[in-house]
């Protein structure tokens, strides 16, 4: 019964928080409306979301977000430095392949997004069977170290959260 009413509890929670932030003030009326929206929308969209993301370790998400935020700021400085001070001819762009140990679609999506937001890398494509990511590096004299860093810094942490 509870499962029928709340097919995606995390989505319900997210919708309530998003609505409260949109309204921009705390009042009981908006909270009631947020709960109504948070209940109705997941039920209506349930047929499109047969799977339910599993979160093994929700607390680890906070640590992951902090690390990614720090890396985003760092990557901004690195990319700005490359844009401003590196002559075109010295730029060593490279494609690299990152084999994936993650299997859940949600975890791979988060990893791909993280890679795009962090220093000098953009996720471009995925292999047909979903077991490797194609990544473009802006300036990578040593592509293997980039791959190893992605695997140890992000993928290992996501592994603990999702699988």
């Amino acid at each position, binding site marked *: 019964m509870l499962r029928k009413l709340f097919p995606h509890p995390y989505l319900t929670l997210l919708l309530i928080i998003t609505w409260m932030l949109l309204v921009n003030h705390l009042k009981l009326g908006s909270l009631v409306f947020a709960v109504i929206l948070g209940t109705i929308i997941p039920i209506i969209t349930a047929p499109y979301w047969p799977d339910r993301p599993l979160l093994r370790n929700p607390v680890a998400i906070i640590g992951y977000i902090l690390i990614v935020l720090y890396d985003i700021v760092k990557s*901004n400085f690195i990319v700005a430095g490359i844009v401003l001070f590196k002559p075109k001819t010295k730029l060593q762009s490279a494609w690299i*392949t990152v084999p994936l140990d993650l299997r859940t679609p949600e975890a791979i999506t988060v990893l791909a997004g993280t890679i795009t937001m962090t220093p000098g890398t953009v996720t471009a494509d995925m292999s*047909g069977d979903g077991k*490797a990511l194609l990544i473009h590096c802006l300036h990578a004299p040593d592509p293997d170290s980039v791959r190893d860093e992605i695997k140890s810094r992000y993928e290992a942490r996501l592994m603990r959260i999702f699988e």
Partner: protein
Amino acid sequence: MEQIAEIVISLLLVAAGIFGLVGSYGLLKLPDTMSRLHAPTKATTLGVGGVLIASMLYFWIFRDTLSWHELLITMFLLLTAPITANFIAKAHLHRFGNADDLPDTQTDHIWATFEDEAEELQPVMTRTTPKPAPPKADH
């Protein structure tokens, strides 16, 4: 106190403006499409982020209200930027990409963009187990 806050807010705005400018300049300067993707996905994140932090500080200190809209904008920005970048990269690979230029996938399949479209597309990963075959009628 208010003076310090004003200076901090102004510094944030100027820094954000510089990052936005560098991101746009990167679009102009970098040599090819894939490299150009790097500038707007990254340098501008901090540009917009700086403006939003300045806005939150301003409303908090000078108007005595906490404004939460900025957090939402940050969240939407962080969610949409990687997806947009991925779309542009895939479109670029479709139009000008050459499968031979790319590194090997190290799996049995080639990169999804170049897979034969005639091949029947199966959802690659899903947790729901396939439904069992309907039971046969006994007679």
